[in-house]
């Protein structure tokens, strides 16, 4: 596969590689989404994570994908991004 190369149209003051979004500096008073991808025992694992997060002052909202085999439906990721400051996706098996 040939790699596509483009010339930077900008002032080049920002790094060439895309940057991660700013990380949260605190969990206190933040809303954290926990996304269960719907694999077995995910619920038990995420229950523990929720307890830990709430102890740090976060509000936790729980979500689940209909099936682990497919990407999250549009409505679900739009809901998460509008309701949460950050999301943790549970990939446990």
């Amino acid at each position, binding site marked *: *596969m040939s*790699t*596509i*190369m*483009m*010339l*930077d*149209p*900008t*002032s*080049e*003051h920002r790094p*060439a590689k*895309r940057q991660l979004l700013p990380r949260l500096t605190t969990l206190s008073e933040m809303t954290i989404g926990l996304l269960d991808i719907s694999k077995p025992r995910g619920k038990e694992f995420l229950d523990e994570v929720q307890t830990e997060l709430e102890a740090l002052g976060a509000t936790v909202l729980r979500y689940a994908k209909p099936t682990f085999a497919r990407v999250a439906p549009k409505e679900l990721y739009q809901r998460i991004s509008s309701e949460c400051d950050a999301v943790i996706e549970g990939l446990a098996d």
Partner: protein
Amino acid sequence: MPSSTATSYSLFVKKSCPTCELIEPVAKLLYELLGSRLTVYIQDDMSFLEEINQRIDDGELEQSYRQNIEIVPTLIRHDEDEQRIVGWEKQQWQEFTGIPELGAGLIDFKPGCGSLTEDPGMAEKLAAKFDSQKLKARRIELADAEDDTEACFDRGWSDGLPVVPPTPVRVMRMLAGTELEADELIGIVPPDNIPCSVEKVAINAVMAGCKPEYLPTVIAVVRAALQDRFCMHGLLCTTYFSSPVVIVNGPESRHIGMNSGGNALGQGNRANATIGRALQLLIRNVGGGKPGGIDRATLGTPGKYTFCFAEDESDDAWPNLAMDQGYQREESVVSLFAGDGVQPILDQLSRTPQSLAKSMAASLRSVVHVKKFALADAVLVVCPEHRRVLRTNGWNKQDLLQAIHDELVTPGTELVSGTGGIAEGMPQRLKDKLLSKFRDDGLHIVTAGGTAGMFSAIISGWVASGERGSQLVSQRI
């Protein structure tokens, strides 16, 4: 025998050229006489001239590109002058090499074929490949799974519509549209005050969808936008609607196929659409001016995608906008106006200039606000049918300007704050004055539009006009 025993030669050929095939015995004789002093560069098929030891596979065309080969066969003599001959002309080849018997059995003359370096689109590909040091912009390598168009969105380079991905080949092709060097500086682009090279203009012109032939116009537009009088920085930062409106005059507008006729202010013409967009993308990408960032317009205007058109110059007796700015009719000029949207003036009944001027003036009263005077400039776009009403009755542009001015002179008492139960209005201290709607040189008249329809238009300007804000600027292409 060859003229000098020290002289070496390069022969560029392709097998698919009948003239190159014709001179096969010539090449072989040259090889017999010159030996290692002859190098043959083959562009296509290495089964050609296999008897010659010193053959170079130039399938990548690097040597052909570096030697500017346009025609095959080309024979270059590497002496002080680096002379070359192309095609086949028996006597010329014999004299050039000093070998009187060269090609003796061949016909006297057969023109060569185009070098593969001259194939359509090849020049830019080769330039991007072998002259890439000319391009100074940072290279951004996409990951294998990235879609190139989506990648431009993801990196924030787009105005919201898809852009053409600025690959090195496309940028080289764009740069062929100007005689300027890629690294020549055009100016300092606000709001971040970034020095901007021709190359950066070309990159953003590629993304906007420009053809290379538009680039000189785009460069003139950028130069105009960066004139101090235009106040691009303030225009970008205003909460008001305004944005650059580009008006192009002169022969270049016709050479590049701009639209000054039906739908001139609308969609569908590539030059109109992309030249205006190139400026907007440049301000966004090089200057860093983005909505939500430093651009905090309350509503903005659709012209912030692009707003660019040419003037109808079909009436030789009617001066164009550039001429109003001191240029000659035969000069190609761009003018930039800090303007908003389009406000129609429908007048299908006026058949005298007096009536039409009153009609236009009444509509122009609404620029910014009917009670705000001398605040914003405006461009009045006179449609051809309205111009005909003026011209057939002996009026010129100056007559129209004067009539509109006279019609709009208004007592301050009608305009001050509170009058008509409207708090907005001019300051009370002006209530005893006669006020003009536009400052001197604040109303510009251009002609554009289709030949059917008595619909002219107002392009209202930024409320910061004149020296305290933006003034119409012009720049030769």
